[in-house]
C-alpha cells in the first residue's frame, strides 16, 4: 500500500488491519507518534490526515487515503508553529509523552475554530489525556497561540 507521510511517499507491505500508529512507528520510524492506550482513550498517537486530527491507533493504514502529517512535518501549518512556540513559552511539558498528540489536536482545533471559547477548548481537548496534569498550561498555551494567530 502507499502512504504519504510528511510529504514523503512510502510503499509499505503490511497487513490490512495494522493500525496507522504501528506502521508509522515500527515500519517508517516516525516515533514522534506515541503509543499510550491503543483504544482511542489518550490521544498520544494523534496525527493529521488531510488537516484533521485523527487518533492513529484507530485507523487502519490500508484505509488512509490522504496525506498524513505528524508533529515533525517539515511544512507545519501556521497554527502548528504558533502552538509549538506557545508550548515552549508556557513550558507546558512535564514528562512530555502526551504533548505531541495534544499539540496536533490543538492545531486541528485552531484551524477549524481560530478563536475558540473556553468551552470550545475544553470540549475539543477532552479527547486527550495528560497524566502529569499539565492541563492549565495547555489551556493557556492554546489561548496564547490563538491570540497570536488572530491578532498578528
Amino acid at each position: 500500500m502507499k502512504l504519504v507521510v510528511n510529504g514523503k511517499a512510502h510503499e509499505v507491505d503490511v497487513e490490512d488491519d495494522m493500525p496507522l500508529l504501528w506502521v508509522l512507528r515500527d515500519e517508517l520510524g516516525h516515533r514522534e507518534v506515541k503509543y499510550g492506550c491503543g483504544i482511542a482513550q489518550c490521544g498520544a498517537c494523534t496525527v493529521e490526515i488531510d488537516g484533521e486530527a485523527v487518533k492513529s491507533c484507530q485507523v487502519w493504514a490500508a484505509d488512509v487515503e490522504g496525506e498524513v502529517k505528524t508533529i515533525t512535518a517539515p511544512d507545519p501549518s501556521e497554527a502548528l508553529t504558533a502552538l509549538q512556540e506557545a508550548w515552549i513559552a508556557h513550558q507546558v511539558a512535564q514528562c512530555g509523552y502526551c504533548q505531541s498528540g495534544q499539540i496536533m489536536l490543538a492545531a486541528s482545533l485552531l484551524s477549524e475554530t481560530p478563536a475558540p471559547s473556553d468551552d470550545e477548548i475544553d470540549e475539543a481537548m477532552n479527547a486527550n489525556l495528560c497524566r502529569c496534569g499539565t492541563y492549565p498550561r495547555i489551556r493557556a498555551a492554546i489561548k496564547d497561540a490563538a491570540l497570536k494567530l488572530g491578532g498578528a
Partner: protein
Amino acid sequence: MGKAGRIARRTFLIGTASVLGGVAFGYYMYKRPMTNPLLADLEPGEAALTPYVLINAEGVTLITPRADKGQGVYHVQAALIAEELDVDLAAVKTDPGPPSAAYYNTALSAEAVPFASYDQGFVAETMRNVMDAPMKFMGMQITGGSTTVPDSWEKLRIAGAVARETLKKAASEISGINTTALKTENGAVILPDGSKMRYEELAAKAAEIEPVGRVKLREPDEWRYIGKKMQRIDIVAKSTGQQDYGIDMHAEGMLFATVKLNPGQGGALNGFDASAAEAMRGVEKVFEIPGGVGVIADNTWRAFKAAEAVECDWGDAPYPAEQAQHWQVLSESFVSDRQDSRQRDDGDVEALDLDHAVEYRGPYLSHAPLEPINATVLVQEGRVDVWTGTQVPRFAQAHVAEVTGLPEENVHIHVLMMGGSFGHRLEDDVVIRAAQVAMQAKGRPVKLTYSREEDMAHDFLRPIAMMRAKGAVGDGQVKALDMSIAAPSTVASQMGERQGLALPGPDPSIVNGAWDQPFAIPDYRVTGYRAPKLAPVSSWRSVGASINGFFHESYLDELIHAAGADPLEERLRLCIDPTARNVLEAVGEMSGWSGGAIGEGRGRGLAMTVSFGVPCAEVVEVSAGEDGIKIEKVWVAVDVGRVVDPVNFEGLVKGGVVFGLGHAMFAEMTFAGGAVEQRNFDSYPYMRLGQCPEIEVRGLETGPKIRGVGEPPVPPAAPALGNAIFAATGKRLREMPFAKQVDFV
C-alpha cells in the same frame, strides 16, 4: 547552613560524605571512598573532575544521576552544577551517567526514621544522619521520595565549584598566573588580559593535577540560576516531537517483543499452546518465561497480536481472588498481634469516652504513566546492554546480572527519558523480563514493550487501606482523635520481596501522612496495623500520605464540624509547626477564606498535609448543580524552603493537585478472579482538561530545609475536595473514588 555544609571535604571528590555513628553497619566498609565511576571509561584528554562533571574536547557534560520522569530534575540537577561551574545551561550536555554507588541518595533514608519531619531535635537529627550510613552502604541510586533537590542541593553545587576551582588551577599552571587573578565565565577561565582558556582546552591538564579540595559556595545574592525563571533544558524537544523515550529506542537489527504474564500477579504458567501465534506473520519466536510467555516479532503490533493468540493455562493468583476478600483481610487486621506502629500517642485516649466513630477506605491504584513500560536489551558474549527508563538502575543492573549469569560490571544500563512514572519505574520487573526475552535472541537488540493492558494488569499497585477512628470535641474545639489504619506493607512487598532488602521495624508508609501531622490535639493517637500480604504493592506518588492525608484531613474536618469550629481557625489553633502555620495562613489569605459555606449549592474545603517534610495546604471550591459536582477553583500554598526554578515548581505543584484530584474523583483498581479488572483508561478514568479547575499556587520559602515538591501537593487534594463537597451538599465522602457516591460534571 552551617560551616560544615559550605566546605567540601577532600573525600567528597570521590563520592564520600561524612557519617555520624553507624554502629551496626561496618564502619570500615562504608568509610572507604567509593570509586568515581567516570574514571573507568575515560579517553586520553578527558577529565572527570567529580562524579558529576565530565569534560572532553567536545564540551562539558553534567552528570544528572537522578532519573527524570517528567518532573524536570535533569534540568534542576544541571542548574545546580552550572550555578558554580559557570557554564551556559543551553551549551552543555547532560547525561544520567552509569549506575554507581557514588550516586547514592542521602536524602531518601533521612525520612525513614521514626521522627516527624518538623522534629529537628538532637535525637531526630542524629538518627537521620546515622540512617545515611546503611543507605550508602547499599549504594542505592534511587530517585524517589521527593528527594532529588534535597539530596542534590549541596552535592551538585560543591561538585560544580570543585570542578571550577580545579580548572582554574590547571589554567594557572599553564599560564603561570596565580589563581586569585583568574575568573570563570561561560565555560572558560578568563585571564587578567581578558583572553580565554576554554574548559575543553584545560581538560587534559586538569586530569593530571590534584583536584582542589576546599571550596566556598556562592552566596544567594550571587546566584545566576537558582530562584530565577529558567527554560527547562528538555522543553524544546518535548514541544516539537524531538524527545525520545525508552519506548522509542531503536537500533540496527532490533527485534520487537512483548510478554503475556499470568494476570494473577505472580501466579504460575501451567502450560500454553502457541501454535496459532507461531503461524502469524512476522512472529519469530514464542517461548516460556517465568509465569508467562514471551513473543519476539518484527513489529510491536505483530507481537501484541501474537501474544493475544497464545492460549495459556494459568495457575491461581497467590492472593485472594475477589476484591471483597481483600477488604475482609483489612477489616480483620485491627488486632494487637498485627499492630505495626504507634508513633503518635499523646495524652490518654483510652481514658476518654470517644464518639464520632467512622470507617474510611482508600482503593488500590495503578501508576499508569502514559508511556507503557518497556526495556531494550542486547545480550552479547560477556556483555549486556540495557536501555530503559528506570528510577533504580543499580537494582536493575543486579537483576540483569542474575538473569544472564554475567558479573554486574558487565551489565551496562543506559537510562532513557521516561514518559511519566509516578513510582511505576521504581519497579524493575520489566527489565528482568526484557533480559529473559533477550536471552532468546542473543546478539540482537530486543525491545520489549508492554501493551497498555499488560502494563496495568502487572502494575505493582498503591495498596488499599482502611481507617477507623473515634474522637471527642468540646468547647468548640477538637479534644481527642484516635485513628487506626490497616494496610498491607509497601516496604515488605517492594523492598523486601522484590529487592531482597530486609528492612526491620515498622513500615512508615502505613501511617505516614497521619501520625506525623503537626497538631497539638490533647489526646491524640495514631496506630498502624500491618495486614498480611495481599496483591503485590509499591510506592505511588506520595506513597502512604496519598491515602493517609485523605483519612486524617477528612476526619479532622469531621471533628471540626462537630465542634462547630472553623476549619482554618481550628487547624491554626492546633498547629505547632511554624512552617505549616505559614502555609495555612497563606492559603487562607489567597482564597479569602471565610468558612466552608459560601452560599447555596457551593462549598469550600480545606486540607493541609505535611509529607516528605513539606507542608502543603489546599482550598478547593466546588459547585453542586443538576449535572453534578464541578470543581471551580483550587488555591495551594506550599513551602519547600527554597524554590530552585519557579516555573518548573509551579507546573509540578499544579500537576500534583490534578493527580490528587483526578484519582480521588474517578480511579480504583479492583480484583475479580485473581486479576485486576481495569486494564486501560476506559475503565480507569482520570480528570480531563474540561474538568480541570483554575489552580493558584504560592511557593513559600520559610521552611528550615530545602525540600522536593514532586509529591507533597498530592495528599491534601483529595480531602480538600471531599471537605468541599461536604460543605456544598452535606454529604461526607469516606471512600475513594468519590464518583461512586457523587456525580462530577
